[in-house]
C-alpha cells in the first residue's frame, strides 16, 4: 500500500511546526509505522537538531535532486527507532535549489517505501511553501492561540485549497489553560469558529518541550506529561481513531474551591 504524505505548515514562523513534525514522526514510529520526515526548510534547516540527528548528515535533499546521491543514501535512520528516518535539506543553499516538480518526485518515491511522509514546511508562502506542498496528500496547519498566527493560518487554508489540498486539519499549539480559563486566550472553540476547519490536535504549552529540544529528544519518546499525551492523541487521530480532545480549560480542584468561596483567580 502506498504511503500518505502530510505537510506541516502554518504561514507564520515560530509556532512549533518543527517540534510538531518531530513528535508526530516519533509517535507514528512508536506505533510501528514506517516514517520519513522531510525538512523542506532549505537554508534554515532545524528538524535535524530538534531530532538530535545533526551530526549524522552526509547527504541531503538538494544532493538527491541534483543527482549527486541516491535517495536512500540521504536518509538518516534514527537509532532510537528502527522505522524512523529523516531526510534533511541543505543548510548553505537557497529555497530555489529545489523545484516543486523535483520535490513531488522525491515524495512519490518515498511513498512506495513508507507509510507516512511528514514534510516540515518553512514559514512564509513563497517558494519554500510551494515546494513543501508538492506531492502531499494532506495538510496539518499549526497555529498558536493568538491573532497573528490564526490570521496566517487562514491565509494558508486558502492557498492549500487553491493548490487542491482539501480539508486541512488544525493543530492548536502552546495553549495555556490558565489564560483560556480567565478569558485572556483564544480557546479551541473560538479558533474553530473563526477558521471553520476541523481540529486534529490541541497541545498545551509546556516548558518541558524546551528541555527536550535542548537534548534533541522529542518529548513523545519520554512518554510522560500532558504534552506527550497530546501528541500521541494526534497520532491516533491521524490513524483514524476517534480520540476525545483534551479539555485544557477544565478548572482544577483548587479553582473550584476558590470559585465556591468566591475569591476568584
Amino acid at each position, binding site marked *: 500500500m502506498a504511503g500518505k504524505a502530510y505537510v506541516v505548515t502554518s504561514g507564520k514562523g515560530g509556532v512549533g511546526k518543527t517540534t510538531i513534525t518531530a513528535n508526530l514522526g516519533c509517535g507514528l514510529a512508536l506505533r510501528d509505522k514506517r516514517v520519513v520526515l522531510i525538512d523542506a526548510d532549505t537554508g534554515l534547516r532545524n528538524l535535524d537538531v530538534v531530532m538530535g540527528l545533526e551530526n549524522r548528515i552526509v547527504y541531503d535533499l538538494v544532493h538527491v535532486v541534483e543527482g549527486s546521491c541516491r535517495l536512500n543514501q540521504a536518509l538518516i535512520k534514527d537509532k532510537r527507532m528502527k522505522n524512523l528516518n529523516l531526510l534533511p535539506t541543505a543548510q548553505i543553499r537557497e529555497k530555489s535549489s529545489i523545484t516543486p516538480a523535483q520535490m513531488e518526485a522525491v515524495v512519490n518515491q518515498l511513498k512506495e517505501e513508507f507509510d507516512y511522509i511528514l514534510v516540515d514546511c518553512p514559514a512564509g508562502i513563497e517558494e519554500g511553501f510551494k515546494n513543501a506542498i508538492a506531492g502531499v496528500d494532506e495538510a496539518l496547519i499549526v497555529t498558536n492561540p493568538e491573532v497573528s498566527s490564526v490570521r496566517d493560518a487562514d491565509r494558508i487554508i486558502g492557498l492549500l485549497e487553491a493548490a487542491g489540498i482539501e480539508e486541512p486539519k488544525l493543530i492548536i499549539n502552546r495553549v495555556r489553560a490558565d489564560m483560556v480559563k*480567565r478569558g485572556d486566550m483564544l480557546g479551541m472553540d473560538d479558533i474553530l469558529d473563526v477558521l471553520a476547519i476541523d481540529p486534529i490536535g490541541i497541545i498545551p504549552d509546556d516548558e518541558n518541550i524546551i528541555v527536550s529540544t535542548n537534548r534533541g529528544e522529542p518529548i513523545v519518546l519520554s512518554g510522560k506529561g500532558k504534552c506527550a499525551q497530546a501528541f500521541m492523541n494526534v497520532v491516533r487521530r491521524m490513524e483514524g481513531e476517534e480520540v476525545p480532545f483534551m479539555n485544557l480549560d477544565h478548572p482544577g480542584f483548587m479553582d473550584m474551591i476558590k470559585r465556591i468561596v468566591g475569591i476568584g483567580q
Partner: protein
Amino acid sequence: MLEFLTRFFTKNSGSKDVAKKRLQLVLIQDRGGLSLEVIEQIKVDLIAAISKYVEIDDEALDVELEDSTECLTLMANIPIKGTRTSR
C-alpha cells in the same frame, strides 16, 4: 445584566473576545471580500448617488463593516443637511 453577573462570577478580563472580534474583521478583508479600499470606494459612490437627491454632510458620513454572529453588515450613517429642491 446576565452578562454582568457572568463577568462578575468568572472574573473574565476577556481580552480574547477582543482578539476574536478583531480576527473576524481582519479575515473578512484578507479573504478578499471587502478591502479598506473597496469600502472607501463604496463610500465615494454612496456620496455621489445620494447627493443627486439630497444635500449630505460628507464630513460626518460614517460607513463601516460590522460582523455579528449572524452575518456581515455594512453600516452607513449619512446625515442629511437639506433637500435639493432645485432639481
